[in-house]
């Protein structure tokens, strides 16, 4: 069992080989990130796959109302959606590069974003991210994909779908990694 706490959430990975705060800022820790690159919040390794996890608690859901944005505040809202999508996209890509340099990209990689939106909005973000990460082999020249899959879920959906990796919100936001 690997337990990882970061950004106010605590994950318990029952079957993980390893799991840690990937964008670790504490220089004293062995997992200190230390590169001028973006990083997802957590990486967990399993026998058959790696999981990248990014957490985002977003206060302003109106960023999604970009359907017919045409003036002032509405344009800002449209940019908000794009911003979040790019934020999640580049976090993944930089993390992949970092892991490539670590020689840790030999297994399929699944990217899961835990976002506090409803299912419909998360589905929409997932669709956009799948195209842009991209998921799967984007070119016939590629031998293997960067990301095998991308999921965007809220807390409930996470716990419904991953009973071996339960997550709960905790009061502290300090980063803690405990191996067992």
């Amino acid at each position, binding site marked *: 069992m690997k337990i990882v706490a970061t950004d106010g959430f605590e994950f318990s990975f029952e079957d993980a080989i390893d799991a840690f705060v990937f964008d670790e800022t504490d220089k004293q820790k062995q997992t200190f990130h230390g590169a001028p690159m973006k990083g997802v919040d957590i990486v967990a390794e399993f026998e*058959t796959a790696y999981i990248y996890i990014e957490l985002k608690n977003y206060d302003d859901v109106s960023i999604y109302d970009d359907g017919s944005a045409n003036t002032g505040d509405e344009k800002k809202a449209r940019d908000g959606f794009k911003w979040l999508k790019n934020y999640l996209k580049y976090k993944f890509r930089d993390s992949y590069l970092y892991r490539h340099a670590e020689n840790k990209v030999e297994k399929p990689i699944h990217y899961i974003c835990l976002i506090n939106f409803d*299912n419909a*909005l998360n589905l929409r973000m997932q669709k956009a991210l799948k195209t842009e990460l991209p998921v799967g082999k984007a070119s016939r020249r590629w031998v293997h994909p960067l990301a095998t899959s991308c999921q965007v879920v809220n807390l409930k959906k996470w716990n419904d779908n991953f009973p071996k990796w339960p997550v709960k919100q905790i009061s502290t936001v300090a980063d803690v990694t405990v191996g067992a």
Partner: protein
Amino acid sequence: MSNGLQRLELKNFTAFSDIAIDFSPKINIIIGENSTGKTHLLKAAYTLCSAGTLSKKTPEINKDDLTVALTTKLMRLFVPLDDKLGKMHHQGASDQAYMKVQFANGQKIACTFFNNSKLLEIVSNSHDWQDSAEAAFIPTKEVLSFMKGFSSLYEKYGLSFDQTYQDICILLDLPEMRAELRHEKNKWAMDEIRSICGGHFVFYGGGKVTFKTDDSEYSANSMAEGFRKIGMLSRLLETGSIQPGVSGPLFWDEPEANLNPKLMRMLVQILLELSRNGQQIILATHNYVLLKYFDLLMDKKKDDHVQFHSLYRDASSHEIRVTTTSEYLKITPNPIDDAYGSLIDQEIKKDMGDLGK
């Protein structure tokens, strides 16, 4: 609004064994899976609202006449099996059916019936209904394509439409309100609808309706169904049947039917603006886009208030219950979002197999 609908109580009535809903004076959105009674709830409230309007229009009406009028209204709205009032009694219930509405100013009416009743029994009724305002009910289907002669046909023949269709035809056929008396937001909303539809519906009386642009006139039937739907709202604003601060609650069953997302956004903007000016709105929907637009476009700085009422069948008792919240993310259960949730489940299963399970 001056006198909004505050509370509805239903016991042993149709699908409901015991339910009570407290309404927001502004926007109320009722969601729920099929067969959880959304439309019944709207119609029950609308029926009882009509008692106030009737009493106001006919102050000399006695209890017996009001009882007959209310029973007829209920029967025509619900169209029960074999035209029997008792068929609306909750199946298996031993107590009598009970329906009650209460308004913000304290006015209330309650009535009961049993499974062999021929008439409702009014058990409680406010004496003074002078503050009462007429409610409007927009049914699921648009009526502009068939309203010519509909009302007379409805009176004469046993058409398979409930009375919400006749009622809305009557309201739409009213003459237009003098422009100077119309609320400024009515004018604004009508202009918005006109600009998106590229013209407006013209009502000649007797149910004859056409659609007019700057240089042509068309049959209403040749217009998109979504335009006819939104055209009904525009006409109600034109006649003053919806007049913020003056008119009674607006009930609307599935406004989303045949509306594209662009029209839905405009519709929500209009409904929010009307509610800011005193119009109470009670609608039932299955549609995520409509529901979400209320969440996205409501502005608490403008004192917007949207109350979400979720009807659901209790897993153990199988009775219909309701939860109410003003926070979109706290709507529980939310069958509309759950449908999207099951798509997420499928994607995860397909992409990740047994990982994490």
